[in-house]
């Protein structure tokens, strides 16, 4: 086990290097310039722009810039935002709490919907419940979040005027009022993301459970006289969860990465909106840092999923 872990970690190093090279090259080759906004401002002469490019080393060859970035990263320096003129890690850390709260809550909501609905549907396939759930799930993951988001805004913010559609990270209220405000502003983005994710997962949980529920050991468990509840939860669910765990673990990096579209619609100041802003402004160090962290997380959660696999299914061994 320990040796397996070590081997996997060692393999991760060249993959991360490869990813960083690809990311850096693509970003460097992409058209655009972090200071192009200045070109439209007649009060800033082109020389200022040229001086800034020189100041931030943008005119050096790509490989030089890459190695400078790599060395800095190894020293724990994530880079310096061209646009905000602050360290990138400060910028990212300021966005983490909101991202974790909103995206995390939506994933929990998705699980809370997907697990019971999926398992119950599989336990009674082709029943009315299953049909309705399947139809709703199909609708749920077919509708993109930007559409459902706008629908909810139109209904709850504009027609009914119940909920605000601008998310504020710093609420001025305190105590209970804070919780009420926080609930009111979070409910729409969380619902939109949670229902979308939940719909997909429901289908997945249902089919995983269906695969298991017809196996002989389940019949054996039933014939032993175990109650249906115990059969489903103890015998079926545990085995059915193996592929689901992989799936959920692999979506976890997204919790960090944020949801670009939904964050933009509700103005949630998460990592996703930071990334999209940085891309629009060609703020390469920020784009690089966010995408690189994302790559690290994908690799880490892949590893975690593999380890969990073995814990859930002792037949799998690590060599």
């Amino acid at each position, binding site marked *: 086990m320990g040796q397996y872990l070590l081997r996997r970690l060692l393999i991760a190093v060249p993959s991360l290097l490869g990813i960083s090279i690809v990311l850096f090259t693509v970003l460097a080759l992409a058209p655009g310039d972090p200071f192009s906004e200045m*070109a439209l401002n007649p009060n800033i002469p082109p020389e200022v722009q040229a001086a800034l490019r020189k100041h931030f080393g943008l005119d050096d060859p790509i490989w030089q810039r890459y190695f400078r970035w790599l060395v800095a990263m190894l020293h724990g320096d994530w880079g310096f935002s061209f646009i905000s003129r*602050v360290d990138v890690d400060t910028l990212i850390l300021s966005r983490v709490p909101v991202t974790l709260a909103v995206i995390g809550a939506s994933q929990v909501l998705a699980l809370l919907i997907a697990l019971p609905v999926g398992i119950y549907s599989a336990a009674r396939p082709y029943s009315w419940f299953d049909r309705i759930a399947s139809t709703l799930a199909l609708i749920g993951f077919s509708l993109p979040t930007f559409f459902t988001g706008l629908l909810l805004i139109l209904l709850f913010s*504009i027609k009914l005027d119940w909920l605000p559609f*601008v998310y504020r990270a710093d609420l001025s209220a305190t105590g209970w009022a804070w919780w009420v405000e926080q609930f009111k502003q979070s409910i729409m983005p969380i619902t939109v993301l949670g229902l979308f994710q939940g719909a997909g997962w429901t289908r997945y949980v249902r089919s995983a459970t269906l695969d298991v529920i017809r196996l002989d050991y389940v019949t054996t468990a039933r014939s032993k006289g175990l109650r249906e509840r115990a059969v489903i939860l103890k015998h079926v669910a545990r085995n059915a969860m193996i592929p689901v765990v992989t799936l959920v673990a692999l979506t976890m990096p997204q919790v960090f990465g944020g949801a670009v579209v939904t964050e933009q619609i509700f103005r949630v100041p998460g990592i996703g909106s930071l990334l999209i802003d940085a891309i*629009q402004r060609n703020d390469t160090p920020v784009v690089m840092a966010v995408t690189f962290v994302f790559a690290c997380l994908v690799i880490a959660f892949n590893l975690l999923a593999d380890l969990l696999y073995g814990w859930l299914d002792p037949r799998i061994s690590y060599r």
Partner: protein
Amino acid sequence: MANDRPALDARALGEWADDVRAGRLPRREFVARLAALGVAAPVASALLSFAGVAQAQAQPSYRPTKRGGGGALKMLFWQGPTLLNPHFAIGAKDQEGCWLFYEALARYDADGNLAPVLAAAIPSRANGGIAADGRSVTWTLKKDVRWHDGRPFTADDVVFNFAYATDPQTASTSVASYDGIVAAKKVDTHTVRYEFKTPTPLWDRAANVVLVPKHLFEAYGGARSRDAPANLKPVGTGPYRFVDFKPGDLLRGELNRDYHGANRPHFDSVELKGGGDATSAARAVLQTGEYDFGWNLQVEDEVLSRLESSRKGRVVACPSGDVEVILINHADPWTEVDGERSSARSHHPILSDHAVREALTLLLDRKSVQAFVYGRAGVATANIVNNPSRLNSPNIKDEFSVERANALLDAAGWKRGADGIRAKDGRKLKFLFQTSINSVRQKVQSIYKQSCAKAGIELELKAIAASVFFSSDVANPDTYGKFLADLEMYAVAGRQPDPDTFLQWFVSWQIASKANKWQGVNRGRYRNDEYDRLYRASQSELDPIKRTALVIAMNDFVCREHAIIPVVYRPSIYGVARQLVAPLSGWDNALSSIAEWYAEA
């Protein structure tokens, strides 16, 4: 274009203004004389005030009788500020954020005139602030102004800002505002003198540069500028104190109890939320009333009007110097000369014909563009200089006439071919017309294409991603600077009331070329000795009246030569909640007047 009026004579104007100043000529007589020349009365009196003739100043009235008590002011910016050091501000969004906490010597009001903020008075010839030789300007500062940490604001701070911004190591973006200033000298603790390289009529340089405190930034000049803690925690003189900042997302401030303006500010706290898109920002201000102020609402006017019908807020359009123009390429984009296309050494084979350029101007249906595309966000104009109104030429009129365009082209020998497209000497009237990707611009492109087709001119339309089109990337052929097309359209951003930067667009030494990495601002590659002469004269003309006449002459020159085709001038569009009173200006940042904002009960 036919013109039956005598042109404004610079010298006569100046003499008349001198007479009014000396009391030899009554004001009304001056206005009447100008009216005879086709200058509207408000323009004439603006000219007078510009010449230093006293006029009752229309002060925006500020009602509140005590400081604070206005509650929270919530503002929504679809592009939030990303940094809070005014000397590093990249776009207007960053400067806006700075104005909550920092202030400048003065700000430009809605008419493009300076209003004092940290200055005790606006320098003029009468009060001796502007040197008679045009080589310096002296600013007196308000006494009793304190930074948020209690230190007094003095001339040292103003001098320091000049040194800080102009140090190349600082890599400041405000350095251009100090362009032409060679020294900032402290006269006494509350008097500063800016000295100019050459005698210049543009004495208001650096007047609205937002000032940072010397005692917090002194240790962080030059290369160390990025380490200053105050970069993210501003300590200014402004009406609000800094509370919290999340770059690109949220900025909060609270009332400054020691603010130097009486009974100001009105609001107890301010909040500036960034991100999202302009349409939903307009919705949050105009329709749901969730926010009090929406910045730069670049939304179709039809949508704005619909949202406005909920009566929670209103749209305010502030005249500014921004003009949407179609640039004509005077160089040849299709032949390579000395290793570059659109070389300044070449001439456009077709567009060098005055008749073709005039026809192209006549074929632009500006009224329809305003009515169906821009609405309040774009006013049809045939002039390049439209605002402030004192600089607007009365001589050029907007005209849309397919018949006249056809007649002109016929007379110039451009004959229609079998395909309906005109040609002469084997050259067809076919042009490539490029702009950035933007739904509004694409609509204008297609309107123009249709009317050109009626006169036998074929336009091929091209739209380029804005990040490419406006970039300074020397390797990319699609940039607006390289201009490898016949026509291109974009907006001139004219932030300063003086159109000097825009007028440089037509001088020969600014032609964009390979040699200057296509950074020259004369992207149309227009070259005319007469225009160069006019521009040089305007640079050293110290008499404001005569200079105004020169500006008008340059505008008329360019428009009569059809060197460029103006489309609309674009006011800044803001969304303001019903109760909010905000004296906004298109000549400065929206929040430069934040101390004057209040909510009606």
